């Protein structure tokens, strides 16, 4: 599963970033490392940028980046999102 697969309001734990070198490193620098927990806040119009909360701050990612972050959904919030 990747960040762009889950609904707004759902929490996740990062497994790994599968994007190329430079973006992958930047996302790691910004806090997307294994084990980090986050939450998808909202997605823009027509799957426009995603607003994701990670390490206590918010970041915008385009769908192509959100689709490169493998995650495990956190169960309690997946239940709450339904």
């Amino acid at each position, binding site marked *: 599963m990747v960040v762009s697969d889950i609904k707004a309001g759902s929490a996740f734990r990062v497994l790994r970033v599968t994007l190329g070198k430079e973006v992958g490193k*930047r996302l*790691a620098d910004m806090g997307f490392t294994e084990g980090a927990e986050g939450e998808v806040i909202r997605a823009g119009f027509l799957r426009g940028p995603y607003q994701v909360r990670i390490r206590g701050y918010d970041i915008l990612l385009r769908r192509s980046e959100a689709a490169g972050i493998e995650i495990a959904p956190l169960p309690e919030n997946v239940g709450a999102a339904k």
Partner: protein
Amino acid sequence: MSAELKEGAERGCLRIALAGNPNAGKTSLFNALTGAHHKVGNYPGVTVEKREGSRFRRGREYRFIDLPGIYSLTAYSIDEVVARDFLLDERPDLIIDVLDSTNLERNLYLCLQFQELGIPVVGALNMSDEAEAKGIRIDEKALTAVLGLPMTKTVGTKGSGLDALLDLVDAAVETELSLAGPGRPTRSIRYGDEIEARIEPIEEAIASDPEFALRFPTRWLAVKLLEKDANAYERLAAHRDAARVEGLAKAATAWIERHHAKDAEIVVSEQRYGYIRGAARESVKIARRPDFSVTEAIDKVIMNRFLALPIFVGVLWALFQLTFSIGAYPQAWLESLFGWLSLTLQSALPQGLFRSLLVDGIIGGVGGVFSFVPLIVILFFLLSLLEDIGYMSRAAFATDKFLHAFGLHGQSIFPMILGFGCSVPAIMAARTLKSRRDRIVTILVIPFMSCGAKLPVHVLLAAAFFPRHAASVVMAIYAIGVLLSLVSSFVLKKTILRGDPTPFVMELPPYRAPTLSGLLWHVWEKTWQYMKKAGTVILASSILIWAITSFPKYSIPQAELDSLAQSYQVSHPGAGKPQLEAYLKASSAEAGLEHSAAGQIGKFIVPAFRPLGFDWKISVATITGVAAKEVIVSTMGILYRVGAEGSAESASLRQALRSDSAFSPLIAFVLMLFVLIIPPCLAALATIKAELGWAWLGFAISFMFILGWSLSMGVFQIGTLIGG
């Protein structure tokens, strides 16, 4: 201990870099530390602004350099390259790391990298009031102990905690001076025994070239080599034994990747965040879930997936409405001031060259332009307000999908809006774009965002030739500009700047109340750039234009005057003596102009402009617009001899234009279009050159000129055919 620090301490002047993440309140802390003692310059080779300021305390000068905000020393954007290069190449005596206390984990990530530089670091836990309000309690003593780095709480916007911070700086300097040995970090993050065992031999190999080790911190370089940082490898090339170091680093990288089954640079990041987690566990208590409620409530509307884009358009519309409705008042005052000035001078000075230079040349040229300064100030004020509040990243969110379809980037939106004010700061603002292709495209299309200097031209022509629809015509020109920027970026991205789409990774800071001093400082900086241009380029070109329109002197032969008078009396039977005199005066002025240098130049270039419907006067005015677009208005003022009243609002210049048979509404529209598209002013061109180099400057000039000429020609020819 670094030699520079010792020297600095002895001189009583410390060079301190103020560094940290974007949105950590670095600039407000800088302002609080330095008060009014500012100097704004540029970093060598790039137009990234470099602010320097000093504070004096107990006989010591603290000279602060405000670095651009960065997330990591693995540079990603130009800002980050500048900050990294400054720290590595200029070696400040000390770094104050400005940390956003509400967002400590990610801010400490950069801090750990500073610690590896072998420069003493002091941490300013900034925005500590905001953190406390959010229920984040930081024990700075515990954090200091865990990280081995002195830290204290500050609030930059209120100027609190500054003395404690400077005390820490003094203490850090004393500690550093008492230590022996080269600039090796006293304490920095450990990456775990296995990785450390591989860093150590790399560090030793780097240190084997003592001269090289003096220039670059060995610890930092060893880690960056593991992170496969391209710039670190470039710097390594200067090492006496570069091949051996490289071999060791590559072997270590390969081992880590085999062992952890991921990229080594990711492993390093994970280690850093793991270390931060450990440090935070002992020193940061979060009383409750962090509170995002205010920002979240606003964003529910502002960032709503359907409303975000319409709201953005509304914000833009309000921006212009406010600018023009508020700006009209000071603009009118300035105009009457310059009008009064020229009338006073006119009556106080004897007729002659000097009066003509002063009234027709200088006041006519510069005055007409200065009356637009209030508009620019208000526009910049509102833009800075949006930026400081935190709206600009929301605008990027709202527009990214749309801009992306045209080959632009969500982050292009701020530079492009800024372009409505002035292209110079707008082109500079494009440096936040990560990809060079995105930067080039954004910079190339920024001039199509009709700037504040083109506005007087549009206003003058629209008011003269479309009196009933002036506002709509000006709006149409703006819309054409926006459309052109979108279409050209689409075409550029499909042709010469083709490539993979660049990532969109952008922090979304919470809304923050702007401070008045911060706002005024922003406005002052941008306005000052504009005023400098008006004071220098426009003054000089006004004098030059006055000179080429006044010399060589020509007086119309008496015989010619007589025949003009005769034909006038024939065509205007019953006209009185005053009318005849006025006619003769105008005719001799026009003849003088035609024989002046400007007239010669105009006649020489007019063939190139005839397909666009321009006569020699319009051609001359357009050419002078190269200096600055407002100069077109002042040139017309001088060409049509309406002196100081030659501003866009002046009725007499409008009348003079309207009564010129060489003009028509169609030609006026074509001229507006031409001015919109052709290459921008010298200042903007110089900025493009500084940002992108000569080759792209050449491309930009030919691209804009060819596009502007052919589009204007097309409109004129079709318009004439239809019967314009």
